[in-house]
């Protein structure tokens, strides 16, 4: 029997290969362009499915069971919200109060982000499983909002340099709030060891790879990044890895997932 004691840790492994991921990406890209963007939710689903299926814990792969259809509904809702914000902006310009419109527009976007990200994490985790067991996400929205506003503030003041630490904080927030719960309320927790400086290095070298390969090297940059992330995650807990009993409920609303994308937050994990 395998035991997970408080002082025993299991690591994850990532098996994705550049070429295999490239195939997924190029198909996604071509179909998205040919459908003028409509294919995007399905592309997202295919992308996550691949990345999950290449991540393993104790030899068993993770499974992402979200679908393009679910995310498409979210896509439409997110699109609706953007149209609304733009309409308010243009109306205010026509009515000669551009300042009001701009304020509402940007405030709307900044406020929308934490909600979108939070919803996105919840949705994703409700569609994540390992050996048939669903994941749990216990992130606190208020804490996330605080963290994001701190992030906006410092990013502006450091002319963008803080962005890497901001991204690292978001990823760590996500990872550290993941858990696999047992029927008897015992838990396995995830812990991230990703440092801002390391993340900065990876991001910049990735950017160079992408630029110098005219974008074609994206798949390799991503698999490299995922290897880095996965090797920096630890699992700790005090229950038997072979004896976890199912509990979480469904979470159908996919909107969080798509609003987050539209606002250009790249969720690596």
């Amino acid at each position, binding site marked *: 029997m395998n035991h997970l004691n408080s002082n025993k840790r299991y690591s994850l492994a990532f*098996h994705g290969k550049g*070429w*295999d991921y*490239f*195939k*997924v990406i*190029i*198909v996604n890209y*071509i179909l*998205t*362009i040919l459908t003028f*963007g409509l294919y995007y939710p399905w592309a997202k689903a*295919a992308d996550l499915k691949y990345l999950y*299926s*290449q991540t393993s814990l104790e030899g*068993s*792969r993770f*499974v992402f*069971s979200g679908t393009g259809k679910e995310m498409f509904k979210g896509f439409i809702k997110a699109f609706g919200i953007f149209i609304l914000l733009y309409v308010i902006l243009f109306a205010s310009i026509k009515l000669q109060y551009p300042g009001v419109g701009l304020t509402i527009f940007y405030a709307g976007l900044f406020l929308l982000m934490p909600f979108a990200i939070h919803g996105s994490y919840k949705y994703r985790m409700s569609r994540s*499983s*390992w*050996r*048939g*067991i*669903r994941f749990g996400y216990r992130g606190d929205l208020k804490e996330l909002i605080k963290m994001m506003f701190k992030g906006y503030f410092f990013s502006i003041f450091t002319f963008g340099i803080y962005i890497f630490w901001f991204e690292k904080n978001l990823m760590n927030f996500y990872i550290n709030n993941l858990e696999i719960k047992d029927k008897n309320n015992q838990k396995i927790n995830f812990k991230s060891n990703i440092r801002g400086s390391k993340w900065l290095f990876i991001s910049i070298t990735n*950017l160079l790879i*992408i*630029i110098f390969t005219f*974008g*074609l090297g994206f798949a390799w940059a991503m698999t490299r990044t995922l290897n880095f992330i996965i090797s920096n995650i630890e699992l700790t807990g005090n229950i038997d*890895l*072979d*004896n*976890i*009993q*199912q509990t979480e409920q469904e979470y159908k609303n996919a909107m969080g997932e798509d609003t987050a*994308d539209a606002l*250009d937050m*790249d969720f690596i994990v």
Partner: protein
Amino acid sequence: MAFYNTTGIYFDGKSSLPQEVKLMFNPQTQLLYIQNGFYHRFEWKLTDIEVSQNGEMLSIIRKDHPEESITIQDAHFAQHFYQFKNVGWYQKLLNQSKAFYLGLTTVFIGFLLVSYFFIIPYIGEKSIEIIPESYDQELGELAYQEMISEEEIDQNKTKILGEFVKELKFSSSKPLKFTIVKSDEVNAFALPNGDIVIFTGILKKMNSYEELVALIGHEATHVHHRHSMKMLGRKLSGYIFISTILGDANGVVTAIGENAHALHSLSYSRHYEEDADNGAFNTLKINKVNPKGMVNLFKTIDNKDDSIIPEFISTHPITKNRISNTEKLIKENPYPFVENTKLHQLFLSLKK
């Protein structure tokens, strides 16, 4: 027909306990028999399950209860199994070779390039034809008000120029209005609504009325052929295309894309300038004015800067090329021309 046997790992969806199971697939009944331990036996219909491939691994999950799954590491069994249960078009696509993907990527990149350099600009320009010319009017007037507010008009010279223009014939889809502005700039420009502005700087440098006719013809052609609007259409359509292609790319990549596009847009601008030069020649021809005037105009406005700025980042073709093109036009289209004393007199008044 033979049965296919193998072993796998089964997860019942209630706990994470891996259970080793024996599997048997009967192609005739389309049933998968599963034996778990000594006592537990159950069967799954092919229609109740979904299969997915992960490298060498075959995953089987129940459609109605996807937490329940079986993983099989037997490639041999998998091959047989796929004959009866499809992995779907997507997986089949992903199974294609590297060569297939290299080919696909090349073809698609080719498609994007052809679109950017030919299809999109063509659409951009053609779509301008849908926009009514009344819009040119509005846009031009707005631009004129904006520019004129910062300049000083030479009212007297403007009047004289008006009389000068009255003596000339040109094809124009809209009435042209000429203004002379006091400035040392050696320049002139045309707006979509027919407003043409000429700076005193360029007037001072000219030596003959033929040069002025050439300049007027050049600017009038810009208006007549809706160059400003077409330029806008091309630039915008290209920009939208680039944004779509780069999608969620980060700031650096976007900036590179936009700058590359801006650079490329300059080449359209040079094309329109050539077109306007041809139009200028026609104006000279229709009005029986000496075409040498056009060559002299280029010599007049030429300055040393031209040799420093390489053509590809300039909005105009370099003067040397414009002169040689004009000389070619003169050689291939000889026509009789006369000296126009009235134009000459008016030109002298403008030079004062």
